[in-house]
Protein backbone atom coordinates (compact mmCIF):
# COMPACT_ATOMS: atom_id res chain seq x y z
CA UNK A 1 0.00 0.00 0.00
CA UNK A 2 2.60 2.52 1.13
CA UNK A 3 5.35 3.56 -1.23
CA UNK A 4 8.99 2.92 -0.43
CA UNK A 5 12.29 4.23 -1.78
CA UNK A 6 13.45 1.07 -3.57
CA UNK A 7 14.86 2.77 -6.68
CA UNK A 8 16.60 5.48 -4.64
CA UNK A 9 18.17 2.87 -2.36
CA UNK A 10 19.43 0.75 -5.23
CA UNK A 11 20.91 3.80 -6.98
CA UNK A 12 22.77 5.11 -3.93
CA UNK A 13 23.97 1.68 -2.85
CA UNK A 14 25.33 1.10 -6.38
CA UNK A 15 27.10 4.50 -6.49
CA UNK A 16 28.66 4.11 -3.03
CA UNK A 17 29.55 0.48 -3.71
CA UNK A 18 31.38 1.37 -6.94
CA UNK A 19 33.21 4.27 -5.24
CA UNK A 20 34.33 2.13 -2.29
CA UNK A 21 35.32 -0.76 -4.55
CA UNK A 22 37.37 1.53 -6.82
CA UNK A 23 39.08 3.20 -3.84
CA UNK A 24 39.85 -0.18 -2.24
CA UNK A 25 41.30 -1.62 -5.46
CA UNK A 26 43.41 1.52 -6.02
CA UNK A 27 44.71 1.31 -2.43
CA UNK A 28 45.60 -2.37 -2.81
CA UNK A 29 47.38 -1.72 -6.14
CA UNK A 30 49.31 1.13 -4.51
CA UNK A 31 50.23 -1.04 -1.51
CA UNK A 32 51.32 -3.87 -3.83
CA UNK A 33 53.57 -1.49 -5.80
CA UNK A 34 51.63 -1.87 -9.06
CA UNK A 35 50.46 1.74 -9.29
CA UNK A 36 53.93 3.26 -8.61
CA UNK A 37 55.39 1.40 -11.63
CA UNK A 38 52.39 1.89 -13.94
CA UNK A 39 51.07 5.35 -12.98
CA UNK A 40 54.21 6.88 -11.48
CA UNK A 41 52.69 7.40 -8.02
CA UNK A 42 54.67 7.51 -4.75
CA UNK A 43 56.74 4.33 -4.08
CA UNK A 44 55.01 1.70 -1.94
CA UNK A 45 57.57 2.10 0.84
CA UNK A 46 56.93 5.85 1.20
CA UNK A 47 54.88 7.41 3.96
CA UNK A 48 51.20 8.06 3.18
CA UNK A 49 51.49 11.60 4.62
CA UNK A 50 54.91 13.06 3.86
CA UNK A 51 55.77 15.71 6.47
CA UNK A 52 53.34 17.49 8.75
CA UNK A 53 49.62 17.76 8.15
CA UNK A 54 49.42 21.34 9.49
CA UNK A 55 50.30 23.10 6.18
CA UNK A 56 47.28 21.41 4.61
CA UNK A 57 44.71 21.59 7.39
CA UNK A 58 45.83 24.78 9.09
CA UNK A 59 44.51 26.98 6.29
CA UNK A 60 41.10 28.53 7.02
CA UNK A 61 39.57 27.89 3.58
CA UNK A 62 40.40 24.18 3.87
CA UNK A 63 38.56 24.08 7.21
CA UNK A 64 35.55 25.83 5.65
CA UNK A 65 35.70 23.44 2.68
CA UNK A 66 35.68 20.46 5.05
CA UNK A 67 32.70 21.95 6.88
CA UNK A 68 30.80 22.45 3.61
CA UNK A 69 31.59 18.88 2.52
CA UNK A 70 30.38 17.66 5.92
CA UNK A 71 27.16 19.69 5.58
CA UNK A 72 26.46 18.37 2.07
CA UNK A 73 27.11 14.75 3.07
CA UNK A 74 25.05 15.22 6.24
CA UNK A 75 22.06 16.68 4.40
CA UNK A 76 22.21 13.92 1.76
CA UNK A 77 22.46 11.24 4.49
CA UNK A 78 19.54 12.75 6.41
CA UNK A 79 17.41 13.00 3.27
CA UNK A 80 18.21 9.38 2.46
CA UNK A 81 17.15 8.31 5.96
CA UNK A 82 13.93 10.35 5.77
CA UNK A 83 13.17 8.77 2.38
CA UNK A 84 13.00 5.37 4.11
CA UNK A 85 9.75 6.36 5.84
CA UNK A 86 6.97 4.68 3.83
CA UNK A 87 4.57 7.25 2.36
CA UNK A 88 0.94 6.96 1.42
CA UNK A 89 1.07 9.80 -1.13
CA UNK A 90 -2.69 10.10 -1.26
CA UNK A 91 -4.35 12.19 -3.93
CA UNK A 92 -5.16 15.85 -3.40
CA UNK A 93 -8.79 16.95 -3.47
CA UNK A 94 -10.47 15.71 -6.64
CA UNK A 95 -11.94 18.48 -8.80
CA UNK A 96 -14.82 16.66 -10.41
CA UNK A 97 -16.14 19.59 -12.46
CA UNK A 98 -15.08 23.18 -12.83
CA UNK A 99 -17.37 25.37 -14.90
CA UNK A 100 -19.34 28.59 -14.99
CA UNK A 101 -22.06 27.06 -12.79
CA UNK A 102 -19.63 26.24 -10.01
CA UNK A 103 -17.03 23.79 -8.88
CA UNK A 104 -17.51 20.27 -7.50
CA UNK A 105 -14.73 18.88 -5.36
CA UNK A 106 -14.41 15.65 -3.44
CA UNK A 107 -12.03 14.55 -0.72
CA UNK A 108 -10.51 11.22 -1.91
CA UNK A 109 -10.59 9.90 1.66
CA UNK A 110 -14.41 10.08 1.57
CA UNK A 111 -14.50 7.90 -1.54
CA UNK A 112 -11.88 5.58 -0.01
CA UNK A 113 -14.06 5.22 3.10
CA UNK A 114 -17.10 4.43 0.94
CA UNK A 115 -15.10 1.75 -0.90
CA UNK A 116 -13.93 0.29 2.44
CA UNK A 117 -17.50 0.19 3.78
CA UNK A 118 -18.70 -1.61 0.70
CA UNK A 119 -15.82 -4.10 0.67
CA UNK A 120 -16.16 -4.80 4.41
CA UNK A 121 -19.69 -6.05 3.79
CA UNK A 122 -18.62 -8.62 1.18
CA UNK A 123 -18.64 -12.25 2.36
CA UNK A 124 -15.37 -13.40 3.93
CA UNK A 125 -13.85 -9.93 4.33
CA UNK A 126 -12.43 -9.16 7.79
CA UNK A 127 -11.22 -5.65 7.05
CA UNK A 128 -10.08 -3.48 4.18
CA UNK A 129 -8.11 -0.36 3.51
CA UNK A 130 -8.48 1.77 0.37
CA UNK A 131 -6.20 4.47 -0.94
CA UNK A 132 -6.85 6.77 -3.90
CA UNK A 133 -4.05 8.42 -5.84
CA UNK A 134 -3.89 10.33 -9.11
CA UNK A 135 -6.48 12.85 -10.27
CA UNK A 136 -10.25 12.84 -10.76
CA UNK A 137 -9.80 12.13 -14.47
CA UNK A 138 -7.05 9.54 -13.94
CA UNK A 139 -7.78 7.94 -10.55
CA UNK A 140 -5.74 5.06 -9.14
CA UNK A 141 -7.10 2.76 -6.48
CA UNK A 142 -4.94 0.67 -4.16
CA UNK A 143 -6.96 -1.69 -2.02
CA UNK A 144 -5.83 -4.01 0.75
CA UNK A 145 -8.40 -6.62 1.71
CA UNK A 146 -7.97 -8.99 4.63
CA UNK A 147 -10.11 -12.09 4.25
CA UNK A 148 -10.82 -15.10 6.44
CA UNK A 149 -8.92 -18.29 5.67
CA UNK A 150 -12.15 -19.88 4.41
CA UNK A 151 -13.08 -17.04 2.03
CA UNK A 152 -13.58 -17.66 -1.69
CA UNK A 153 -11.03 -15.29 -3.20
CA UNK A 154 -12.26 -15.63 -6.79
CA UNK A 155 -15.83 -14.86 -5.67
CA UNK A 156 -14.54 -11.81 -3.82
CA UNK A 157 -12.73 -10.64 -6.98
CA UNK A 158 -15.91 -11.14 -8.98
CA UNK A 159 -17.89 -8.99 -6.54
CA UNK A 160 -15.23 -6.28 -6.58
CA UNK A 161 -15.24 -6.26 -10.38
CA UNK A 162 -19.04 -6.20 -10.70
CA UNK A 163 -19.95 -3.80 -7.90
CA UNK A 164 -17.19 -1.92 -6.06
CA UNK A 165 -14.99 -0.83 -8.95
CA UNK A 166 -17.89 0.15 -11.26
CA UNK A 167 -19.48 2.12 -8.40
CA UNK A 168 -16.26 4.04 -7.79
CA UNK A 169 -15.82 4.61 -11.50
CA UNK A 170 -19.40 5.88 -11.77
CA UNK A 171 -18.95 8.21 -8.79
CA UNK A 172 -15.86 9.72 -10.40
CA UNK A 173 -17.38 9.66 -13.90
CA UNK A 174 -14.09 8.30 -15.15
CA UNK A 175 -12.58 4.82 -15.57
CA UNK A 176 -9.86 3.87 -13.10
CA UNK A 177 -6.34 4.08 -14.52
CA UNK A 178 -5.02 1.50 -12.10
CA UNK A 179 -6.57 -0.89 -9.63
CA UNK A 180 -4.10 -2.63 -7.36
CA UNK A 181 -5.46 -5.17 -4.93
CA UNK A 182 -3.51 -6.84 -2.14
CA UNK A 183 -5.15 -9.80 -0.42
CA UNK A 184 -4.17 -10.73 3.11
CA UNK A 185 -5.44 -13.69 5.11
CA UNK A 186 -6.45 -13.64 8.75
CA UNK A 187 -7.69 -16.27 11.15
CA UNK A 188 -10.10 -13.71 12.62
CA UNK A 189 -13.79 -13.95 11.86
CA UNK A 190 -15.66 -11.41 9.81
CA UNK A 191 -16.82 -8.52 12.00
CA UNK A 192 -19.93 -7.72 10.02
CA UNK A 193 -21.24 -11.26 9.81
CA UNK A 194 -22.62 -12.86 6.70
CA UNK A 195 -24.43 -10.68 4.18
CA UNK A 196 -28.11 -11.57 3.92
CA UNK A 197 -29.99 -10.25 0.91
CA UNK A 198 -33.51 -9.18 1.83
CA UNK A 199 -36.57 -8.19 -0.12
CA UNK A 200 -39.57 -6.19 1.00
CA UNK A 201 -41.70 -3.12 0.49
CA UNK A 202 -40.68 0.36 1.52
CA UNK A 203 -43.60 2.17 3.18
CA UNK A 204 -43.50 5.93 2.94
Amino acid at each position, binding site marked *: *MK*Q*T*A*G*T*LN*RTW*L*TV*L*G*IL*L*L*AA*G*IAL*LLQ*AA*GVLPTRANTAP*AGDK*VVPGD*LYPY*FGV*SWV*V*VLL*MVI*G*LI*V*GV*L*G*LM*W*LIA*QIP*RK*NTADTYRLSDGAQGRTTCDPSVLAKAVENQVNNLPGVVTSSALL*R*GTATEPNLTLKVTVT*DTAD*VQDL*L*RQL*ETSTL*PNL*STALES*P*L*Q*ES*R*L*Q*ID*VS*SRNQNTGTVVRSTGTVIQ
Partner: protein
Amino acid sequence: MSRNSGRSNRLRRRPSRTVPALIVGSLLLAAAVALVWLAIARLIDGTWSALLQGPRDWLTALTWNSPAMWGIGITAVVVGLTLLLCAIIPGGFIALTVRNTARDSTGGEPQVKERETVMTRRAVAHLAKALCEQVDGVSSAAATATDKRVHLSVKTTLRDTGELRTRVTESVRDRLNATGLDPVPRVTTTVQFKG
Protein backbone atom coordinates in the same frame (compact mmCIF):
# COMPACT_ATOMS: atom_id res chain seq x y z
CA MET B 1 9.03 5.93 -10.79
CA SER B 2 8.80 8.92 -8.50
CA ARG B 3 6.97 8.41 -5.27
CA ASN B 4 5.06 11.62 -5.91
CA SER B 5 3.99 10.93 -9.49
CA GLY B 6 0.41 10.05 -8.48
CA ARG B 7 0.84 6.55 -9.81
CA SER B 8 0.95 3.60 -7.44
CA ASN B 9 3.99 1.39 -7.09
CA ARG B 10 3.52 -2.21 -8.12
CA LEU B 11 2.43 -4.37 -5.19
CA ARG B 12 4.40 -7.34 -6.49
CA ARG B 13 7.84 -5.87 -6.10
CA ARG B 14 11.31 -6.77 -4.93
CA PRO B 15 12.54 -5.85 -1.45
CA SER B 16 13.36 -2.14 -1.03
CA ARG B 17 16.81 -2.65 0.56
CA THR B 18 15.75 -0.53 3.53
CA VAL B 19 18.14 -2.12 6.05
CA PRO B 20 21.39 -1.50 4.12
CA ALA B 21 20.12 1.98 3.22
CA LEU B 22 19.43 2.78 6.88
CA ILE B 23 22.86 1.50 7.95
CA VAL B 24 24.81 3.39 5.26
CA GLY B 25 22.68 6.53 5.66
CA SER B 26 23.25 6.56 9.44
CA LEU B 27 27.02 6.07 9.00
CA LEU B 28 27.18 8.90 6.45
CA LEU B 29 25.20 11.19 8.74
CA ALA B 30 27.36 10.34 11.75
CA ALA B 31 30.59 10.97 9.78
CA ALA B 32 29.21 14.26 8.46
CA VAL B 33 28.15 15.47 11.92
CA ALA B 34 31.61 14.63 13.29
CA LEU B 35 33.32 16.46 10.40
CA VAL B 36 31.17 19.58 10.78
CA TRP B 37 31.61 19.60 14.57
CA LEU B 38 35.42 19.31 14.25
CA ALA B 39 35.55 22.03 11.58
CA ILE B 40 33.42 24.43 13.64
CA ALA B 41 35.54 23.74 16.73
CA ARG B 42 38.67 24.47 14.67
CA LEU B 43 37.22 27.76 13.40
CA ILE B 44 36.22 28.86 16.92
CA ASP B 45 39.28 27.69 18.92
CA GLY B 46 41.92 28.16 16.23
CA THR B 47 43.33 24.66 16.79
CA TRP B 48 42.16 21.20 15.85
CA SER B 49 40.58 19.13 18.62
CA ALA B 50 42.89 17.02 20.78
CA LEU B 51 40.78 14.03 19.74
CA LEU B 52 42.52 14.13 16.35
CA GLN B 53 46.02 13.85 17.87
CA GLY B 54 45.97 10.02 17.92
CA PRO B 55 44.70 9.52 14.34
CA ARG B 56 47.14 12.19 13.10
CA ASP B 57 50.16 10.44 14.69
CA TRP B 58 48.96 7.10 13.32
CA LEU B 59 48.48 8.54 9.83
CA THR B 60 51.88 10.28 9.65
CA ALA B 61 53.68 7.04 10.64
CA LEU B 62 51.85 4.98 8.01
CA THR B 63 53.52 3.73 4.80
CA TRP B 64 51.68 2.68 1.65
CA ASN B 65 52.67 -0.99 1.94
CA SER B 66 52.05 -1.31 5.70
CA PRO B 67 49.65 -4.04 6.93
CA ALA B 68 47.20 -1.33 8.06
CA MET B 69 46.89 0.00 4.48
CA TRP B 70 46.34 -3.55 3.17
CA GLY B 71 43.65 -3.94 5.81
CA ILE B 72 41.97 -0.66 4.84
CA GLY B 73 42.10 -1.62 1.13
CA ILE B 74 40.65 -5.08 1.71
CA THR B 75 37.92 -3.66 3.98
CA ALA B 76 36.98 -1.07 1.33
CA VAL B 77 36.78 -3.76 -1.37
CA VAL B 78 34.66 -6.05 0.84
CA VAL B 79 32.28 -3.26 1.92
CA GLY B 80 32.04 -1.95 -1.66
CA LEU B 81 31.24 -5.41 -3.01
CA THR B 82 28.66 -5.93 -0.25
CA LEU B 83 26.90 -2.67 -1.12
CA LEU B 84 26.96 -3.54 -4.82
CA LEU B 85 25.51 -6.99 -4.13
CA CYS B 86 22.82 -5.43 -1.92
CA ALA B 87 21.86 -3.19 -4.84
CA ILE B 88 22.17 -5.74 -7.65
CA ILE B 89 20.78 -9.00 -6.19
CA PRO B 90 17.05 -8.63 -6.90
CA GLY B 91 15.68 -10.75 -4.03
CA GLY B 92 12.40 -12.63 -4.11
CA PHE B 93 9.07 -10.96 -4.81
CA ILE B 94 7.23 -9.99 -1.64
CA ALA B 95 3.87 -11.08 -3.07
CA LEU B 96 2.41 -13.65 -5.46
CA THR B 97 0.20 -12.80 -8.43
CA VAL B 98 -3.47 -13.79 -8.22
CA ARG B 99 -5.29 -14.62 -11.44
CA ASN B 100 -8.31 -12.34 -11.81
CA THR B 101 -10.77 -14.23 -14.00
CA ALA B 102 -13.64 -11.94 -12.99
CA ARG B 103 -12.44 -9.09 -15.21
CA ASP B 104 -12.77 -11.22 -18.34
CA SER B 105 -16.36 -12.20 -17.62
CA THR B 106 -17.79 -8.79 -16.72
CA GLY B 107 -18.02 -7.53 -20.32
CA GLY B 108 -19.04 -4.01 -21.37
CA GLU B 109 -16.89 -0.89 -21.09
CA PRO B 110 -13.65 -1.49 -19.16
CA GLN B 111 -13.89 0.23 -15.75
CA VAL B 112 -10.19 -0.24 -15.05
CA LYS B 113 -7.30 0.18 -17.49
CA GLU B 114 -4.57 -1.57 -15.51
CA ARG B 115 -5.08 -4.20 -12.84
CA GLU B 116 -2.86 -5.97 -10.38
CA THR B 117 -4.01 -8.52 -7.83
CA VAL B 118 -1.56 -10.05 -5.40
CA MET B 119 -1.43 -12.07 -2.23
CA THR B 120 1.43 -11.50 0.20
CA ARG B 121 3.78 -14.38 0.99
CA ARG B 122 2.64 -14.21 4.60
CA ALA B 123 -0.99 -14.51 3.50
CA VAL B 124 -0.19 -17.53 1.31
CA ALA B 125 1.61 -19.20 4.24
CA HIS B 126 -1.33 -18.43 6.53
CA LEU B 127 -3.81 -19.82 3.99
CA ALA B 128 -1.73 -22.96 3.41
CA LYS B 129 -1.49 -23.57 7.16
CA ALA B 130 -5.25 -23.17 7.59
CA LEU B 131 -5.95 -25.51 4.66
CA CYS B 132 -3.49 -28.04 6.01
CA GLU B 133 -5.15 -28.09 9.42
CA GLN B 134 -8.46 -28.98 7.78
CA VAL B 135 -7.03 -32.26 6.41
CA ASP B 136 -8.04 -35.31 8.41
CA GLY B 137 -5.13 -36.75 10.39
CA VAL B 138 -3.22 -33.49 10.82
CA SER B 139 -2.59 -32.61 14.47
CA SER B 140 -0.78 -29.34 13.88
CA ALA B 141 0.86 -27.57 10.97
CA ALA B 142 3.24 -24.76 10.17
CA ALA B 143 3.81 -23.20 6.74
CA THR B 144 6.40 -20.98 5.10
CA ALA B 145 6.02 -19.41 1.66
CA THR B 146 8.31 -17.83 -0.89
CA ASP B 147 7.20 -16.53 -4.28
CA LYS B 148 7.82 -19.96 -5.81
CA ARG B 149 7.42 -22.47 -3.04
CA VAL B 150 5.20 -23.31 -0.07
CA HIS B 151 6.57 -25.66 2.55
CA LEU B 152 4.36 -27.36 5.11
CA SER B 153 5.57 -28.98 8.32
CA VAL B 154 2.90 -31.31 9.61
CA LYS B 155 2.66 -33.22 12.88
CA THR B 156 0.42 -36.25 13.05
CA THR B 157 -0.43 -39.19 15.27
CA LEU B 158 -0.71 -41.46 12.20
CA ARG B 159 2.08 -43.97 11.68
CA ASP B 160 1.70 -44.04 7.87
CA THR B 161 3.01 -40.58 7.08
CA GLY B 162 3.53 -41.17 3.32
CA GLU B 163 -0.16 -41.29 2.46
CA LEU B 164 -0.91 -38.24 4.62
CA ARG B 165 1.89 -36.26 2.95
CA THR B 166 0.38 -36.94 -0.47
CA ARG B 167 -3.13 -35.99 0.69
CA VAL B 168 -1.94 -32.77 2.36
CA THR B 169 0.19 -31.71 -0.61
CA GLU B 170 -2.56 -32.33 -3.16
CA SER B 171 -5.25 -30.71 -1.03
CA VAL B 172 -3.25 -27.53 -0.44
CA ARG B 173 -2.08 -27.33 -4.07
CA ASP B 174 -5.67 -27.70 -5.36
CA ARG B 175 -6.96 -25.01 -3.02
CA LEU B 176 -4.11 -22.58 -3.88
CA ASN B 177 -4.96 -23.17 -7.54
CA ALA B 178 -8.65 -22.49 -6.84
CA THR B 179 -7.67 -19.31 -5.00
CA GLY B 180 -6.11 -18.16 -8.26
CA LEU B 181 -2.39 -18.03 -7.51
CA ASP B 182 -0.65 -17.74 -10.85
CA PRO B 183 1.65 -19.61 -11.10
CA VAL B 184 0.72 -21.98 -8.30
CA PRO B 185 3.77 -22.30 -6.03
CA ARG B 186 5.38 -25.70 -5.61
CA VAL B 187 4.01 -27.32 -2.46
CA THR B 188 6.28 -29.53 -0.37
CA THR B 189 5.39 -31.26 2.88
CA THR B 190 7.31 -32.90 5.67
CA VAL B 191 5.29 -35.04 8.05
CA GLN B 192 6.50 -35.83 11.53
CA PHE B 193 5.04 -38.60 13.66
CA LYS B 194 3.96 -37.30 17.05
CA GLY B 195 4.07 -40.33 19.33
